[in-house]
């Protein structure tokens, strides 16, 4: 029965439907992902994919992938991308344009900011159920820490620690441009 199920499994899924976005922000863009729950054959392949769309000057919050390498290919527009390795060195800092492909290893922190013409990409991940951990936003690692821990960690005031925790608390992964940007 297993073989039959495998042989008849659905093998494709449209990834760019705005109505089916997993994360959507009116001011920042959207993310559509396909994992083993949506496309079961990916469980066997141990892979998954994601389509991202950032509006002009919007940002993809700094984050790292917990259980997968991430290979992303730029399908439209351009963005400033930064990635940081475990030794604290910047391992990528540059502009990516349509047709570019970048490999970001597991746990390497990365952030993107779309240029004025917006940014679209497709990511391929080496896990059927990828998990990412953001540094900024409603479910961020830093937001989960007590104010005193942040204040002592960074040697900043309680007020500044609260700003770090809460200023982006209404956003998840996709960050609208600020007045500075």
């Amino acid at each position: 029965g297993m073989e039959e199920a495998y042989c008849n499994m659905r093998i494709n899924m449209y990834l760019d439907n705005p109505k089916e976005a997993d994360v959507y922000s009116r001011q920042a863009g959207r993310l559509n992902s396909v994992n083993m729950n949506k496309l079961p054959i990916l469980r066997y392949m141990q892979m998954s994919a994601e389509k991202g769309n950032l509006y002009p000057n919007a940002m993809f919050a700094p984050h790292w992938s917990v259980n997968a390498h991430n290979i992303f290919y730029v399908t439209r527009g351009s963005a400033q991308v930064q990635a940081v390795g475990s030794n604290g060195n910047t391992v990528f800092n540059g502009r990516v344009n349509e047709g570019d492909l970048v490999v970001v290893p597991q746990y390497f922190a990365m952030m993107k900011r779309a240029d004025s013409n917006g940014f679209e990409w497709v990511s391929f991940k080496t896990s059927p159920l990828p998990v990412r951990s953001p540094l900024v936003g409603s479910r961020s690692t830093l937001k989960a820490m007590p104010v005193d821990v942040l204040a002592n960690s960074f040697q900043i005031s309680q007020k500044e620690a609260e700003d770090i925790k809460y200023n982006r608390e209404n956003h998840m992964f996709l960050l609208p441009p600020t007045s500075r940007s």
Partner: protein
Amino acid sequence: RTRQGDPQQCRIQQLSASRPSRRIESEGGVTELWDENEEQFQCAGVAATRNIIQQNSLSLPNFSPSPRLVYIQQGRGLLGISYPGCAESYHSRRQSTSQQSPRERQTEQQRGEDQHQKVHRIRRGDIVALPAGAAHWCYNDGNEELIALSITDVNSETNQLDQTPRSFYLAGGEPKRSSTQQQKQQYNANNILRAFDERMMADAFDVPMEVVRKMQREDERGFIVKVEQGEMSMIRPDEEEDEESEERRRGSN
């Protein structure tokens, strides 16, 4: 998936007891590391570390790509863990005071504050499981040094990087005393926030550049720091309540 160890590494003629070969001194404690290149560690695909956290000191937030089990050999402390993808905090409206201006009150009311934080009491004899990728910090609020021995399974299938033991820190920096290139290579850890562009960080966190500069400044305190201005305050159940419920659990078994 099978464990990725190289079978060649396990052709060991003789096992031996070993002690830490390296010592990283931070402002608030010491990190001691066993030589992961020793045959026995290579064969088992594990790395061993011992952290000694002084009183009123904080081991800074960090995470590892591999799962880690920690044994608390001495002392007591508070441990915070953030699991990726899990909401950790709940919010409530802040009470505004009459001394604040209406604008301040409005800003304060729009912002939440933690009503609950997931903070665990750890004490001597505890074994603590730290899943791969879970950011954690530890604060020694006891009256003696907190000594924690960790074994990291670098060969775990959750780790898709190579088998070099790594720690990704969200704060702190290389202590001045151990900043030689050789030691940097030996202790694969650094503050990952420092490498980001300060303007992009300020936009991402929506905070002034000055705050980001503080977060990214050269921090020679190391990875375990002294807590300033007395003890840290945490939102957590009373210790007595904790111990009572523990007793109840034991009694009902």
